[in-house]
C-alpha cells in the first residue's frame, strides 16, 4: 500500500515536472508570429522597425521588397509609408486580407500615403485622407489615455511624454468604427487647432484588427528618438500583437515614460542593470540623471526580497568603490541608506574620511544604524 502511494506520488510529481517543462518550453518558444514591414522610409529606419518588432520576442519580421507582396502569409502588416503607389490588384488583396481577419499596424502618417482611397480611409479610421497635415516643428508632447481597458494600453501609465516628434493634425475626423486609445493636445502655438487629437486608435474592419499610431513621423537616420521613445516602441510591439491575435501578452516596461519625463531605448530594448550602472558613473548634477532614476525605478519595482536587495546592495558597493563621479556616488548613498544592510557599514565608514562623500556616507549610516 505504502509503495503504491509512493509510486502515485512519484507519478504525480513526474506529471507536474513534465507539465512545467512544457510550460517552460512554451515561454522559450521562438517568435511565433510573422510580420511584414511595408515602408518607403530610409533603410536604416526599416531595420529599426524590424528590430523593435523582433525585440518583443513574438515576431519574425520581414521587410517587404516586392511590389505585390503575399499579404496572406503574415499575421500582421506594419505600414510606415509616405506615398504608396499600389495597383488596383494590390489594393484589393490588401482589403481582402483585412476583411479575412488580417492584422494591420499603421504608423505615422501612412494613411496619407494612399490619397483619396475611400475604402482605405475607412480602414485606417480617418475620413480626411489627403487632408492630414502635421506640426511645422517636432516637439515633445503628452499622450493622454482615453480608454481604461484596452489590451494595447492596459497596465501602462495613462499619461506619458513622447519624445520630440511631429504631431499629426486633422486626425479627429475619425470614422465611426474607430476607437480612440490616446489623444494629444494640438497646441495652437504649434500650428494645431487647440483640440485633443487622436494619436493612438484601433479600427475593426471586416474580421480584421487595425492599430493606428500617428507617432514616429519625424524619425530619420540622423534623428531616431521619435522611434526610440519607449512609448513608441511599446505601442508598436503591443499594437502589433493585438492586431495579430486580439490579445496582448507583453508585460508593461517599468521604465515606460511618465506624465513629465520622456524615456528612450537607444537600442530598442531596455538596458540591463549593469549597463544602467555603467552609464550612471559619469553623472554630474545638471546633466541628465535618467540612468540614476532608472536604477531607482528598478529598485522600487523589485520583488522586495532580502536577496534582491542584497544583489542591488552589492552593485552599489562596487559602484562606490569604482571611479564613478562624486555626484553619482552621492545619489547611490541615498539609495543605500534604506535598502542596504550591515554589509554596507564598513564601506560607508571608510567614506566618512572622504571629504567629498563624508556627508553622504553619514546620511546612509544614520539610517542603517537605526
Amino acid at each position, binding site marked *: 500500500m505504502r509503495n503504491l502511494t509512493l509510486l502515485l506520488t512519484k507519478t504525480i510529481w513526474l506529471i507536474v515536472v513534465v507539465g512545467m517543462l512544457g510550460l517552460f518550453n512554451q515561454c522559450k518558444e521562438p517568435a511565433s508570429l510573422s510580420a511584414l514591414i511595408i515602408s518607403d522610409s530610409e533603410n536604416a529606419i526599416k531595420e529599426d522597425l524590424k528590430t523593435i518588432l523582433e525585440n518583443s520576442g513574438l515576431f519574425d519580421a520581414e521587410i517587404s521588397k516586392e511590389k505585390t507582396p503575399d499579404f496572406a502569409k503574415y499575421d500582421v502588416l506594419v505600414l510606415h509609408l509616405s506615398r504608396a503607389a499600389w495597383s488596383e490588384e494590390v489594393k484589393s488583396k490588401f482589403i481582402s486580407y483585412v476583411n479575412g481577419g488580417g492584422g494591420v499596424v499603421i504608423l505615422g502618417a501612412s494613411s496619407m500615403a494612399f490619397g483619396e482611397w475611400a475604402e482605405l480611409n475607412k480602414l485606417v479610421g480617418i475620413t480626411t485622407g489627403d487632408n492630414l497635415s502635421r506640426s511645422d516643428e517636432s516637439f515633445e508632447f503628452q499622450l493622454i489615455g482615453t480608454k481604461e481597458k484596452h489590451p494595447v494600453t492596459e497596465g501602462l*501609465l495613462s*499619461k506619458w511624454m513622447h519624445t520630440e516628434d511631429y504631431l499629426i493634425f486633422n486626425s479627429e475626423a475619425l470614422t465611426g468604427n474607430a476607437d480612440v486609445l490616446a489623444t494629444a493636445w494640438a497646441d495652437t502655438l504649434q500650428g494645431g487647432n487647440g483640440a485633443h487629437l487622436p494619436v493612438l486608435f484601433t479600427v475593426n474592419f471586416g474580421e480584421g484588427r487595425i492599430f493606428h499610431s500617428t507617432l514616429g513621423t519625424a524619425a530619420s537616420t540622423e534623428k531616431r528618438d521619435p522611434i526610440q521613445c519607449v512609448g513608441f516602441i511599446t505601442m508598436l510591439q503591443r499594437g502589433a500583437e493585438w492586431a495579430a491575435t486580439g490579445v496582448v501578452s507583453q508585460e508593461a516596461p517599468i521604465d515606460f515614460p*511618465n*506624465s*513629465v*519625463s520622456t*524615456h528612450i531605448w537607444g537600442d530598442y530594448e531596455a538596458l540591463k542593470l549593469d549597463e544602467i550602472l555603467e552609464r550612471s558613473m559619469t553623472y554630474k*548634477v*545638471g546633466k*541628465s*540623471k*535618467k540612468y540614476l*532614476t*532608472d536604477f*531607482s525605478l528598478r*529598485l*522600487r*519595482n*523589485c520583488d*522586495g526580497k532580502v536577496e534582491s*536587495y542584497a544583489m542591488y546592495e552589492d552593485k552599489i558597493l562596487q559602484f562606490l568603490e569604482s571611479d564613478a563621479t562624486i555626484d553619482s556616488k552621492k545619489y547611490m548613498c541615498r539609495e543605500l*541608506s*534604506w*535598502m542596504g544592510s550591515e554589509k554596507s557599514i564598513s564601506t560607508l565608514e571608510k567614506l566618512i574620511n572622504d571629504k567629498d562623500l563624508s*556627508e*553622504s556616507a*553619514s*546620511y*546612509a549610516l*544614520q*539610517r*542603517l544604524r*537605526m
Partner: protein
Amino acid sequence: MKDSRRKFIKKAAGSAFGMIAAPYIIPGTALGKNGAVAPSNRIVMGGIGLGSMGSGNTRNFLGKEEVQYVAICDVDRNRRGKAALMVNGRYKNKDCRTYSDYREFLEKEKLDAVTLALPDHWHAIVSIAAANKGLDIYGEKPLARSIREARAIVQAVEKNKVIWQTGSWQRSVENFHKGAELVINGRIGKINRVEVGLPNGRKPIGTPPVQEVPEELDWNMWLGPAPTVPYRGISHWDWRWILDYSGGQLTDWAGHHIDIAHWGLGYDRTGPISVEGEGIYPREGIFDVPVEYDFTCTYKTGVTFRVANSARLPHGMGACWYGDKGWLHVDRGDRINASDPKILEEVIGPEETKLYKSTDHWQNFLDCIKSREETITPAEVACRSISVGLLGEIAMLTGKKLAWDPEKEVITNSDYANRMLIRPYKAPWKLDMHA
C-alpha cells in the same frame, strides 16, 4: 495626561515648572479699560520664518488686541526687513527686534508664544527648541518632514506642557466643521471609504545653474540639517518641490484635507494599518517630489482612505466620505455637497457628538494660551495627519505595501521601509528625542 494638562495652571518662571517662560498675562485680568489691553498684559509674541505663511500668520496676530509682537527671525535679511516694517507699522514704533539665527532669538527674547513657518526640514529642530524654552507655539503644517520628527515634536510639546496650534486652519472654517460633524454623527451612514484630493504636482524645471548666494540670504543656515548643496536659486517657496526639504503637494496639503478626513471619522489620534500606492517621479531635474501620487490606506475598522492628486479623483480637491447612506464632500471656497442635499440640512442634536468649535484659528490659539486647554489642532492630531502623507511617501518611494502599527508607530513588515521614518541630519544638527 489630558486631565493633568487641563488642570495645569501656568506658573511664573522659577516655579516648579522652571522651564516654562513667565506668562506676561494673567487670564481674567487681561482686559483693560474699554476692551483695550494694556501692553504689559499682552501675550508677547515673536515669529521665526517670515515668508508667505509666516507673514500671513504674523499679520493675523498683529490684528489681535491681546498680542504684542516684539521680535522676528529669518535667515533672509530682506524678509526680516519687511516683517519688521509690518510689525512696527502696526505699533507705530521702531521696536521690533530682528534676528537671523533662531538660537539667538530664543535665547535673548522673553516671549510667551512664537509662530513658526519654516521649510519642513527645519520644523522639528526649531519646534523642539521653542517648546523646550516653554513657549506656546503656532506652527505651520505639515508638523514635520519625517514621522520620527513629528513624534519628537509631540513629545517635546507634552513634556513642556506648552500649547500647540497647527496651521491646519480649515478646522476653524464652518463648512469643514459642519461636514465632519455630520459624518461623525452618521448622517451618511457607516463610512466605508474616503477620498482625499490634494493638488496636482509641480512640473519639473530642469536644473538651474549654480549661482552666487544673494547677499541677504544665509544659505548655510537655510539648509541647516539638510545635505550641503550649492545655491541654484531655489530656496523660498520652491523648497516644496525637493525631497530634502518637503514631500511636495502631498505633504504640504496632508495637514489640510487628510486632517479633515480624519476629523470626520474620529481618527485624530490613530493611523492606518496598511498603506500602498504609486507615485510618478520626474526622471530629470532638481525637483524630485512626485508629480502624481495615488495611495490607499486601510484602517483597522476596514475604512479605506484613497489619497491622490486631484486629477485622479471624481470629486477633485477636498475630502469626500462615502457611507452606506450616501457621500459628503468638503473643499475650500465654503464648498460642502452631499449625495442628497437634505443631508446638509440635518441638525445635530444635543445628545450627539459635538466637534471642537472654533471660528478663528488664530484666536483659538490665543484663547488656549490663556485657558491652557488644548487647541483645535494640537500636535498629536497634526502628527497623525502628516503620518498618513509620509507613510504614503514611503510606500511610493519603496514601491511596497506597508503594514503600519499606529500604536508603536513602526512599519511591521519591512525593516527597509522603517529606515525612511527618519530623514538623516547633517552634522552638527541633531534631533532632540524625548522618548
